[in-house]
């Protein structure tokens, strides 16, 4: 019996030929990641352990992205605490101020996470790097502390679920729509504890940005990781960025899967996930007219240059955003910000009446930079629409792709991009 890509990567990192689903293993990690919310707890735990030095100063990434630029005194104290730790331990990949981007955008962009790696992060969306053909998963702060001390982490080898993406992509359908559709199909615990492996002919049509978006939201179906087998698109992305030598793995033809879903992508139209679960996905065209107060375009899910280009192409056609809609655009990293500036995208947003923010997770988790009042509704390219996620417990978040979000910003209600002439 062959192995799935996830099993192969896990086996290679614990010196075994094969691992079986259900087996407990303690593999080596290539990168351990924390942010300004989770790293302070992890560092506190690390200090309690009595270990003096981190296992490898080059294999830890600390990204101060959630509440930065520091939103209040307590957050500033957290960042200061992490900064001092990073200095003392000589952590190579420390990001703050003008260097910082949203962690799951900047870590692959800088070539820190690479194909074939095991990456753990004290952030649930760490599963993003599965897009590169890495095993990548979210853990808690204590796990991060332990990994910083030992360079290892405990796992139960997951079963794999295969998603075969077939058919033709409809207009305006992106990675976001594919993953929202899948979560709608299987539910928010449809892949609980399991690996989500994305394969099929459509994958060749998906850019790295689309793949990052899909892998990013594996956690919203309860998945342990989301993963794509690397190919020439991955190679092109990784070759110019990777800081270390990378390795491509692929599933054996006779690998065992818990389940296989055949997804006919030609049936997918631009999606929106209604409050209060990402699984409440519907085609935008089937949603009744819903007026909105805010649009957010950004985050680790959809804050990449490709996302900004799509949004700008629609806003340019519509000229101005609706006066009732606060439109907040957040390029995910300084490099994306700079690129968007050079391409004139930021000017399009600003001329249309949108706000362009510095890279931050900010509003996605109700941190800052766009908090909702009671009764307000927001269309957002982010990943969660739970109760109170972006602010008041009686506010609502609707998840969508950048094209739908831009169209909605112009129309003032949840709209399809085709409505912008």
């Amino acid at each position: 019996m062959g192995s799935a890509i996830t099993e192969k990567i896990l086996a290679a990192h614990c010196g075994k030929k094969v691992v079986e689903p259900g087996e407990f293993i303690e593999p080596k990690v290539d990168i351990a990641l924390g942010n300004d919310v989770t790293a302070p707890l992890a560092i506190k735990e690390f200090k309690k352990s009595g270990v003096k030095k981190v296992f490898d100063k080059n294999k830890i990434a600390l990204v101060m992205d959630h509440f930065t630029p520091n939103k209040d005194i307590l957050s500033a104290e957290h960042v200061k605490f992490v900064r001092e730790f990073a200095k003392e331990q000589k952590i190579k990949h420390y990001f703050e101020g003008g260097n910082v981007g949203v962690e799951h955008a900047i870590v692959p962009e800088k070539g820190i996470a690479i194909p074939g790696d095991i990456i753990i992060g004290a952030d649930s969306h760490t599963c993003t790097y599965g897009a590169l053909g890495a095993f990548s998963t979210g853990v808690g702060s204590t796990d991060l502390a332990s990994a910083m001390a030992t360079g290892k982490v405990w796992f139960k080898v997951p079963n794999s679920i295969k998603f075969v993406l077939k058919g033709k992509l409809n207009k305006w359908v992106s990675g976001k729509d594919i993953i929202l559709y899948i979560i709608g199909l299987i539910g928010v615990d449809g892949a609980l504890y399991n690996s989500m492996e994305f394969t099929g002919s459509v994958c060749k049509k998906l850019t790295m940005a689309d793949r990052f978006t899909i892998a990013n939201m594996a956690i919203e179906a309860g998945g342990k990781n989301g993963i794509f087998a690397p190919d020439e698109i991955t190679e092109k992305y990784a070759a110019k960025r990777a800081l270390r030598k990378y390795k491509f793995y692929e599933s054996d033809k006779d690998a065992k899967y818990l389940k296989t879903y055949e997804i006919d992508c030609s049936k997918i139209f631009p999606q929106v996930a209604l409050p209060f679960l990402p699984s409440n996905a519907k085609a935008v065209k089937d949603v009744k007219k819903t007026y909105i107060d805010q649009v957010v375009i950004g985050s680790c899910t959809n804050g990449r240059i490709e996302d900004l280009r799509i949004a700008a192409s629609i806003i340019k056609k519509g000229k101005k955003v609706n006066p009732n809609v606060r439109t907040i655009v957040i390029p995910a990293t300084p490099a994306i910000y700079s690129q968007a500036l050079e391409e004139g995208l930021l000017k399009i947003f600003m001329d249309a009446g949108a706000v362009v923010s510095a890279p931050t997770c900010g509003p996605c988790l109700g941190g800052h930079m766009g908090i909702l009042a009671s009764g307000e509704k927001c269309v957002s390219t982010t990943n969660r629409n739970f109760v109170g996620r972006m602010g008041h417990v009686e506010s609502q978040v609707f998840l969508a792709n950048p094209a739908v979000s831009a169209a909605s910003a112009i129309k003032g209600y949840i709209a399809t991009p085709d409505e912008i002439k």
Partner: protein
Amino acid sequence: MSDIILKGKVHKYGSNVNTDEIIPARYLNTTDPIVLAKYCMEDIDKDFVKNVKPGDIIVAENNFGCGSSREHAPISIKAAGVSAVIANSFARIFFRNSINIGLPILESEEAVKSIKDGDEIEINLNKGTIHNITQNKTYQSQPFPEFMQKIIKAGGLLKYIKK
């Protein structure tokens, strides 16, 4: 060593109770368990902290603790005085975090189905048995895998790796 017995009143919830509801991000600018406990479950049950008594037990349906990786969620539950959480299933990061910080969690569909809000229950952690005092019924949950028992026995992950 005598068995660990946890006893308290049940606070019952449905499926997909997420970490944003357990501890909203507006309180994530602290790591202090005492502060986090004050806001526990605020966005799903604003009276929870008023009603909870030391030893009480949370019972929920599927996928408890889904969402973010914030360890602040099980920390706030533990610091609020909750002695254990019973659910049909737990989101995987919440599951890890609970074990790593020493918050007992048990999976038992039989118990979740039968237990009602306000019931008085008693858990024997070593045996994995759940006794419903109010209804005079006993349910069995899966004992933890040996690997995790070792972490719990050591008093958390960091103490385990220190050994």
